[in-house]
């Protein structure tokens, strides 16, 4: 394919340890999970599980180990297991992360690893929260391309620079790690939240879209962008590395620019 790539010698010497041998590191951890099942008790409790895990295991593997080998009633959402579906945002050692992207070895395994549901959304059971309020905000910002008729025969044209303008915010997987890490969202849950703004940003700055004004109007609401107090929790929590606070700032500027 790319011819500029140098052709390596057909056989190379591998660094020792790469070709074989080597122990797989193994370690013991305590997983401390916040359990809650209103069918049986109104109280949430902390439950400790002692586990032996391996070098490449993630928090999701530890949770699976508990569910599959110790207590099948432990409930959490998960699907893809490699950080692309957004199912398993949870609070791990006090911070929002994806369980499937958090390697155990990167955590302090000498202390119990705490795992609890994300904040600010109603807990349904164990680590599962009601995502509806979150998706409700998402839907309210009209997360779809709006054009005023006159469709082109083939595709809309868009320069690579215009495409690059909103690239960052197209990466969102709607995991809610950001919104549920936001101190303003925790207060009364009415704030649109960073995820909704990120997804509005994705369209507001898409040169093909013609509904930007409507979205800016929506986010100019009293529960809109002005509630963001730039605490950056969202940016730090985002597993996709989206510059969330920056995107919110850009939307604020766009609303300001529109009004003056």
């Amino acid at each position: 394919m790319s011819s500029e790539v140098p052709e390596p010698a057909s056989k190379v010497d591998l660094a020792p340890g790469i070709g074989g041998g080597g122990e797989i590191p193994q370690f013991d951890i305590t997983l401390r999970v916040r359990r809650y099942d209103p069918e049986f008790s109104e109280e949430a409790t902390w439950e400790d599980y002692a586990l032996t895990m391996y070098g490449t295991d993630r928090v999701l593997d530890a949770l699976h180990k508990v569910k599959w080998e110790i207590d099948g009633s432990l409930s959490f959402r998960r699907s893809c297991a490699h950080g692309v579906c957004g199912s398993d945002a949870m609070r791990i050692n006090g911070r929002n992360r994806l369980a499937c992207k958090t390697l155990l070895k990167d955590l302090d395994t000498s202390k119990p690893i705490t795992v609890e549901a994300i904040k600010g959304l109603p807990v349904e059971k164990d680590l599962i929260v009601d995502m509806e309020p979150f998706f409700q905000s998402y839907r309210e910002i009209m997360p779809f391309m709006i054009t005023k008729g006159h469709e082109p025969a083939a595709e809309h044209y868009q320069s690579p620079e215009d495409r690059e303008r909103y690239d960052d915010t197209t990466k969102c997987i709607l995991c809610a790690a950001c919104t549920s890490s936001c101190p303003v969202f925790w207060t009364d849950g009415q704030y649109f939240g960073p995820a909704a703004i990120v997804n509005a940003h994705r369209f507001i700055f898409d040169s093909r879209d013609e509904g930007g004004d409507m979205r800016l109007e929506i986010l100019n609401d009293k529960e809109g962008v002005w509630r963001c107090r730039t605490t950056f929790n969202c940016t730090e929590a985002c597993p996709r590395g989206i510059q969330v606070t920056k995107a919110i700032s850009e939307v604020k500027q766009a609303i300001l620019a529109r009004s003056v």
Partner: protein
Amino acid sequence: MATTEFVAPRSGRIDPKYNRGKSKSGNFEMLAWLFMRISGVLLVILIFGHLFVNLLVGEGVHAIDFGFVAGKWANPLWQFWDLAMLWLAMLHGTNGVRTIISDYVEKDRPRFWLQLVLMLCSAAIIILGTLVIFTFDPCIPGSTLAVCQ
């Protein structure tokens, strides 16, 4: 086995769980946000000047007495300075506390009452402070202050 009329529970058609207003607030939140930033920058100058003159120049806090204040307010610049500081700081602070109340007080009624109390207090303080600055007369009978001579 009756067929129930039932809308999909988790699609866009549910009653909004959000009680967000239907875009009635206009640009108020934006202007408030902007005001916080502009007033903040101005306050830096005003407050630092104030603190500097009151606490650091000369004998600092020991020098403050009736005469000190009287001397300052004889100068229209300081009168204006303190007036601006009063208004900006009070409006800035009041708006700040207003957001804090709406953040943490979720129920409509208590929220309303607290906001009302806040507004009344602030209004009272602003009016009081303004009156003091404008109606201040350092030359009370028997005054020995230089300005009154």
